[in-house]
């Protein structure tokens, strides 16, 4: 029966998606089966979000557009002059999160941060997630990702690396990342990742007007020629980008990008994939677990939908899905495009020291689209 379901679900995949799925099926059949069941879950009205895990915000970069900057100790201590005094998640919390996620049929974890490759306990975190039960992705700036590190990641069970590349022009990338030499390190990391047999995804941040540039199209072409996908994240008015509202895209940018999807291996979080047409993926397709155990519905929304140290994951996701901003299907990016929500988010987070705002202060039970 399971095989029949998988065959039907696989028929919705592109040839490239099907090839990847089959490869995983031989190595990690349990994980592949869970991934194949996602479509069936969605047909039943269930959700299967990717879980982004931000255990640590330690980072060797200080990027212009970082969404996590306001969560970092360096920002809390040097800019806001406060301490992170909330209880932090530990390995037991991650093991429990993994268990609950598995029980719900969730299949994907992204280890992010901060920069995961500066985490001393990265191997332990991967083991706590359990790569035999979940598809594990590592989100990195690539600075430390050489051949040895890539082989090690493969060995400990990482399946895919998501590598940030903000421009095909070396100087522009390094400027945007505020890190001379980072472009060269990304190029090294691309080769190391592919040589180690890891799946690779390049990720880039799109700012207003950039989609019109020759350089952006060149970046799309570069990824396509390499045979890897380019994941494009719109610049959102949160984190370090709060000071750069001019970065926020307009619908025209998003629409031109949608057209580029036809010619290049480029996509956003709203691009249909693996047969799923979710639109904005808040809760439905992604959640972020912060270092304090708060769950946010998107990496760029600093409102919590519940704390995993205090309540079951299933309850938190249900709470998120019942919120009128988050649960219903919509085609646009809530925090990147909806002016009303952006205004609410900006006003509520202004002056806050400890993000995300807990449930009841950001999102509440009484939220309405029209108030």
């Amino acid at each position: 029966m399971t095989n029949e379901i998988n065959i039907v679900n696989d028929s919705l995949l592109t040839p490239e998606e099907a090839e990847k799925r089959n490869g995983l099926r031989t190595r990690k059949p349990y994980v592949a089966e869970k991934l194949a069941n996602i479509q069936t879950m969605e047909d039943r009205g269930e959700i299967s979000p990717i879980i982004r895990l931000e255990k640590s915000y330690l980072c060797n970069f200080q990027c212009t557009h970082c969404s996590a900057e306001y969560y970092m100790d360096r920002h809390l201590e040097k800019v806001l002059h406060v301490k992170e005094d909330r209880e932090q998640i530990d390995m037991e919390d991650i093991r429990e999160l993994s268990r609950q996620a598995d029980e719900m049929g969730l299949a994907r974890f992204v280890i992010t941060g901060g920069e995961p490759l500066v985490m001393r306990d990265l191997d332990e975190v991967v083991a706590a997630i359990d790569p035999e039960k979940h598809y594990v992705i590592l989100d990195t700036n690539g600075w430390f990702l050489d051949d040895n590190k890539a082989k090690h990641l493969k060995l400990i069970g990482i399946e895919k690396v998501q590598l940030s590349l903000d421009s095909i022009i070396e100087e522009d990338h390094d400027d945007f990342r505020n890190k001379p030499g980072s472009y060269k390190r990304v190029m090294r990391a691309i080769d190391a990742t592919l040589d180690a047999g890891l799946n690779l995804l390049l990720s880039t941040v799109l700012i207003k007007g950039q989609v019109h540039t020759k350089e952006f199209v060149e970046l799309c072409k570069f990824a396509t020629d390499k045979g890897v996908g380019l994941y494009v994240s719109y610049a959102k008015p949160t984190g370090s980008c709060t000071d750069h509202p001019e970065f926020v895209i307009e619908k025209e940018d998003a629409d031109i990008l949608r057209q580029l999807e036809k010619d290049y291996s480029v996509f956003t979080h709203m691009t249909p994939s693996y047969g799923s047409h979710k639109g904005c993926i808040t809760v439905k397709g992604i959640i972020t677990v912060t270092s304090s155990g708060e769950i946010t519905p998107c990496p760029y929304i600093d409102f919590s939908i519940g704390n995993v140290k205090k309540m079951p994951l299933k309850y938190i996701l249900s709470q998120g899905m019942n919120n009128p901003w988050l649960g219903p299907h919509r085609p646009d990016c809530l925090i990147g495009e909806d002016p009303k929500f952006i205004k609410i988010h900006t006003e509520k987070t202004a002056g806050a020291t400890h993000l995300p705002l807990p449930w009841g202060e950001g999102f509440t039970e009484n939220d309405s689209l029209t108030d």
Partner: protein
Amino acid sequence: MNGLLKGKIKMVKTAYFDQYGRCIPEALMAKVYEQSRRYFSVVQPKINYAETYQRFDRVFDIANDLSLQEFERRAEAILNVLSDTGITQSVGVPIILPKADYSDIGQAIDDIYLKAVQQSFNAMFPDYSFVNHNSSSLAGQFSIASGSRHDKLIDAMKEGVVVAYFFPCLLEYSVPAAIEQISHLPEQFLLAGGFDTAAAFIGNPDLLVRKDGYAPLLWMSGLNVETEGVGYHFESYGYDLTFNRRVHLAKVAEYWASSLVVLG
């Protein structure tokens, strides 16, 4: 006395639609947003009867059965009749449905109507695409939703060529709420299904194309689907138009809408 009575009747009629032509939900059991912030909205395309007629004639070869003058006269007559109901504040487009008696609605949508939408869309937007994401056959998929009054449109098609007006005004209604709302509306308002919704895009391929904002997804709510909680719909994706199937499970979304049709 007569004047007072007339005034009362008019008040009742205008209460069906708000100042923007959105159909006002009538104490429904099914899920609907009572108020709308009009974030997802359809922009009224320019009505050009001659161009619309040509698009229908190109795909349906209707010239022998309906002249341009007759099309315009019948379509305008619909708007005149509806002028005091408030629905004319809504976006609306005239449509033509050729005379037909299909034994299988899904098969006809697959074989005739979606291909016609594609032809019409490609003619208006050669650089963009109409994409049918539905990979399986629609044959046997549909029946007329009970309470939708969509059967009246199907019956009218059996009698002769149909001229109608299509109004995507059930904004932010769940599919069951759109069906439920019909029972609160005067008899001439029918819930749109497959042929009429497709025809709206044949006549006006740009109906959901917006550069400055997002248009809603349009369900074919007048048709029941074999699998409960599933529906078929048209939706823009950037500058493309798409047709697809998805689960709705009787839920409501700000982005979801259904449409009314009035026959002329």
